[in-house]
């Protein structure tokens, strides 16, 4: 068993899941693949099993946050050292996994690496709709202010964490729209993160987790969550300590 795990959350992604798994196996062969089937009704889980992935079958739809956390708990309990999130819909190109891994390995103080669509030198690829880019830019500004480092793609779910990141997210992961909050979570736990340029493609099939009518709710909810996360009286405690405490 390798020490690297690819977490693939999938909700009704029957059209893309097999290709995603195969791409990970081809482009990043040192990674085991865990598909988190978030209550799919179209046989996504069975297709993933057939494609050679381990599958966590959630009994009903938990939403992306709960599904991702299940994956991190699996990674924690099975002693994985590195976990990378790859969307099940084909948006994240697994050929960039090696770039993320290289950056994480290279910089010893780093706990998380995020693939960013908006970092030079890459250009082109899928960069979301214009309306969403306004939201992304806003959160980019807010998070850069909060974390005092440049964050260009706060909504990217293409991210790789080390063991401490795995333990933190297994213990505490945001619920609804986790990407932005996860960055704040890393920051409040004094873990370091960085971005690596990637190119994303538009989703192959299926539906985005966020429809346009939900965008306003998304903005307000995430804004509230960020403010609360900053105000929350959290003792400055290492993620590893929390994990050790729980296992006691």
């Amino acid at each position: 068993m390798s020490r690297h795990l690819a977490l693939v959350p999938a909700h009704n992604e029957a059209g893309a899941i097999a290709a995603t798994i195969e791409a990970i196996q081809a482009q990043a062969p040192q990674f085991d693949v865990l598909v988190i089937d978030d209550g799919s009704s179209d046989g996504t889980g069975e297709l993933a099993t057939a494609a050679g992935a381990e599958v966590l079958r959630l009994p009903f739809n938990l939403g992306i946050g709960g599904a991702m956390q299940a994956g991190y708990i699996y990674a924690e309990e099975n002693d994985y050292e590195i976990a990378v999130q790859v969307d099940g819909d084909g948006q994240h190109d697994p050929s960039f996994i090696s770039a993320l891994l290289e950056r994480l390995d290279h910089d010893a103080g780093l706990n998380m690496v995020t693939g960013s669509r908006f970092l030079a030198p890459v250009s082109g690829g899928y960069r979301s709709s214009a309306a969403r880019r306004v939201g992304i830019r806003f959160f980019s500004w807010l998070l850069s202010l909060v974390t005092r480092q440049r964050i260009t793609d706060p909504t990217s779910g293409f991210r790789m964490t080390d063991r401490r990141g795995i333990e933190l997210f297994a213990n505490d992961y945001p619920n609804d729209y986790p990407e932005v909050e996860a960055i704040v979570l890393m920051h409040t736990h004094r873990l370091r993160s960085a971005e690596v340029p990637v190119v994303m493609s538009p989703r192959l099939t299926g539906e985005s987790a966020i429809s346009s009518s939900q965008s306003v709710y998304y903005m307000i909810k995430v804004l509230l969550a960020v403010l609360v996360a900053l105000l929350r009286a959290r003792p400055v405690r290492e993620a590893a300590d929390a994990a050790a405490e729980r296992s006691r």
Partner: protein
Amino acid sequence: MILATNQISSFLGQRLEVIIFGVLVCLVIFELVRRKHLMERYALLWLAAGVILLVLALWRGLLTTFSHAVGIYYPPAALFGLGFLFVLILLIHFSIAISRLSDQNKILAQRLALLQQRLEKDEGGQPDRERSEDEPVEGESTPSVSRGRG
């Protein structure tokens, strides 16, 4: 004189209705708890409401004294205010309860998926490899998981 008696009797009538209503609330809540349709934890707030209603009906000057003390000169308005406050507290109480329930629900779903994956893996031809020391083995003998692989 006649006017005054009428006022008193109508006031008494209203008090009687309130007393009956308060007693009824308490009885219904007791019955729901007895039938286990309502947990004691959630019954307490409702019982408190019924008891407060009874106290206000029996202790004549209390509402007037209270409303004047807080600067409301029309006592029924104070009653409405109290009722609104009670409903507000109840709703917040429920929101907290729902949040806790959905969090527990999430943890249960995650744990179920993790256990099911481990069970299927054990049944799928890799015996003993993944079982950690602290896990009980009884799960293996229960045939409740139908999705076994051939």
